[in-house]
């Protein structure tokens, strides 16, 4: 149970606070309601590039990192298809420095051509390091456009193409900032050794003067229902064949999110899970296998992925995966098996509440989705799920005409033949 205090500033900034006196530290987490889904199709990768630019100094502070490090702080950020999230941890008695720095870069960035030039290069190296120069690194670049035809989830956060990052101009940067970086488009969450009232006063002092901005209403193309199975086969120089099947599912805020989450746990969370026991251990078709849900704000994906053992044909591996998916769609789940994944959800929830940074990050995200207090109701949502609901959910998701299959085949691979 996380104790949560809330406050909203006149300019629309929402603030959520959780006091945790067991740590001498505090986390300040600022989440903006903008992600890769808000990009233009010919300007992809921009939300993420922008995240990098946010560290290039702001209106009154030439460097973001330096003053933070000077008070013992550390920070980082991430961009997803839905959100851009910035976070700081620092000794709690120096927390005001985080308010100064975060508010100044919300007020106005220091837009310099040099910053744009260097960060474009850095992001291009990140693109290469993560997506092009790694075995299987380009998988997201292949599977997303297979599963989505019109919704912007069809590109990954890094972008469709390096060229989009190279072409970014200063005008793009400025217009993106004023469109999305606004107090009324963000949530500030603080967890750690702090007093809620003091945090609200700090927020007023530092963020109160930032004007509300005109944030365009989001109107994204709706992905039409998929009606036939999609397939793509590619050949790459990798050590083993790889299979990736995507299925369309619902939104993060739909009630069946929790059922789908347990369904993915039954299939692949932990060494006792179904896919691992059957496909890795018993039949030795895969060296590793996973099932997971994306949990996106707009309708997302249920993915099943695995790397094949040598000598196993992709057809055989695929048939074996489908057999497991059909079994969970048609057969009754034993009470104990469902209880097992529920227990795991409960204990992981307790483990995650050890970290004050985790708590700040979760509160911010939940508040942006609706209400930070929903964190405390989650466990009830999981507990309420019955054994009948699992096959129902599985049967509605695991349909051939709802699937997009990537067969990623190893050719002339280095290593063994």
């Amino acid at each position, binding site marked *: 149970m996380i104790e949560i205090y809330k406050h909203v500033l006149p300019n629309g900034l929402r603030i959520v606070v959780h006091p945790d006196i*067991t740590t*001498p*530290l505090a986390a300040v987490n600022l989440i903006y309601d903008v992600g890769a889904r808000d990009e233009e199709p010919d300007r992809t990768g921009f939300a993420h590039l922008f995240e990098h630019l946010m560290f290039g100094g702001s*209106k*009154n*502070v030439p460097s973001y*990192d*330096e003053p933070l*490090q*000077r008070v*013992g*702080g*550390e*920070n980082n950020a991430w961009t997803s298809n839905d959100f851009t999230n910035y976070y700081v*941890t620092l*000794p709690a*008695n*120096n927390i*005001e*420095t985080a308010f100064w*720095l975060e508010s*100044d870069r919300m*007020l106005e960035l220091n837009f310099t051509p040099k910053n744009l*030039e*260097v960060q*474009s290069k*850095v992001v291009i*190296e990140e693109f*290469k*390091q993560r997506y*092009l*120069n*790694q*075995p299987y690194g380009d998988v997201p670049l292949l599977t997303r456009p297979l599963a989505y035809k019109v919704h912007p989830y069809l590109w990954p956060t890094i972008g469709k193409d390096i060229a989009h990052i190279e072409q970014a101009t200063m005008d793009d940067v400025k217009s993106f900032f004023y469109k999305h970086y606004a107090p009324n488009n963000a949530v500030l969450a603080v967890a750690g050794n702090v007093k809620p009232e003091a945090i609200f006063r700090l927020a007023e*002092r530092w963020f109160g*003067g930032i*004007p509300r901005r005109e944030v365009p209403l989001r109107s994204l193309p709706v992905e039409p229902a998929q009606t036939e199975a999609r397939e793509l086969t590619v050949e790459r120089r*990798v*050590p*083993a064949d790889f299979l990736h099947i995507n299925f369309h599912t619902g939104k993060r805020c739909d009630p069946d999110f929790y059922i789908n989450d347990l369904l993915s746990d039954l299939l692949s*969370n*932990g*060494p*006792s*899970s179904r896919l691992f026991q059957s496909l*890795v*251990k018993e039949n*030795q078709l895969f060296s*590793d296998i996973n099932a997971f849900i994306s949990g996106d704000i707009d309708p997302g994906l249920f993915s099943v992925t695995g790397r094949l*053992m040598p000598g196993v044909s992709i057809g055989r591996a695929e048939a074996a995966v489908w057999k497991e998916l059909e079994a969970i769609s048609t057969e009754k789940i034993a009470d104990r098996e469902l209880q*097992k994944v529920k*227990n795991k959800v409960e*204990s*992981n929830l*307790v*483990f995650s509440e*050890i970290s004050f940074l985790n708590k700040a990050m979760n509160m911010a995200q939940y508040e942006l989705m609706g209400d930070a207090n929903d964190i405390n109701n989650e466990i009830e949502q999981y507990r309420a799920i019955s054994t009948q609901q699992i096959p129902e959910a599985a049967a509605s998701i695991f349909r051939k005409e709802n699937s997009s299959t990537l067969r990623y085949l190893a050719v002339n691979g*280095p*290593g*063994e033949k």
Partner: protein
Amino acid sequence: MIIEVDRKKGPEFQILDKIDFLPISRFVLPNGVDVSLLEAGSQDVTKIDWLFPAGAVQAGKPLLASTVGNLMLEGTDSRTSAEISDIIDFYGAHLNVQTYHHNSVITLICLTKELPQLLPVVEDIVRNAVFDAKEYYIYLNKRRQEYLLESEKVRTIAARKFGQVVFGEAHPYGRQLELSQFDTLTREETIAFYKNAYTPLACRIVVAGQPGSDIKDLLTRHFGDVSWREGMVNLNGVSELMPSPDKFHLVEKDGALQSAIRLGRPLFNNNHPDFIPLQVVNTILGGYFGSRLMTAVREEKGLTYGIGSSIVSYQKSGMWVIASEVMGEMREAAVEAIFEEVKRMTDEPVDKDELELVRNYMLGELLRHFDGPFSSSDIYRSLWEFGLDFGFYAKMVEVIKTIGSEEIQLLSAKYLKREDFYVVVAGR
């Protein structure tokens, strides 16, 4: 718009004075196994580490120690692999084994209330594992696939080569796993090593969290058995270092878009008097986001997504290593840019402002490292390997607060000579 705050200057701040380390209580089980307890935290969760002298050094060859560590979980004389997995998952726990050079560590993280159900399973794994032939075969085949995948990454290729170059190909710290060793390892070897290494001899237990008042009884019942006989392993010896005579090594990889680079030198471990002050030198050079290497190679030149340096301690040696993945066609420029920063550490004194920043950053970082019982217990466990305790970090706090720019320059001149550095490149 009216802004009442001074946005140019920023708020006042305080400098960290000291770190409050968690107290540790110790007791010994009837068979001599030593237990350390760090009792803290707001959640009823427990983390237990079992340390055994079952690392790669004792195994004497690659693959053996880690295979034994992982296969222990795959079946005992009374529980199958599937049954063990099912119990661990059912109680929402995490159980894994990691092997290092000089020891292996079994880690259990669970809700405290489940300890009575889980400790018998850990006891069984440690004492009665059977290394079933089928499990052995499945594990090694799976592991071979992971090895092949890792071998494709320039980062891994460079890291493996760097170890060989700095410590020597035959030295336990330098020798690397090769594909052929998957065919020569035998199940009999794993059983023999298990029987000798997983015994009360040099076994230690570290408990952290809120394990409850009966933890001593539970551990005594499951790990204190006086009839559990000690095994026989090599507890000390490693051979002399045999570094490569060549300072530059290139491992070419066709089609690589980036080159992974490792630059560094052999060093001592954290028992050496210069080790603590060198942490400050390392932080300035490449130990944090605002470091000189990150600033020059990423933020000014845009040659990489990331670069960092670190000092690694081993029981009998250590190394100082700078690692990055850089634009393939700019590899030479990147190496020169790195050496330029290395040289600047010796040529110019660190200015007051930069040193103040690094001091405060490092103190904040220590505070983060010691936050909570789990991370404190990890630090405690690694210190113990060197015969040290939290006093090591109390001393580090003092050094960070008082070290001057002259000392930093002198240490740099002593340890950052270009001629002492090895350069390893994987890619092109």
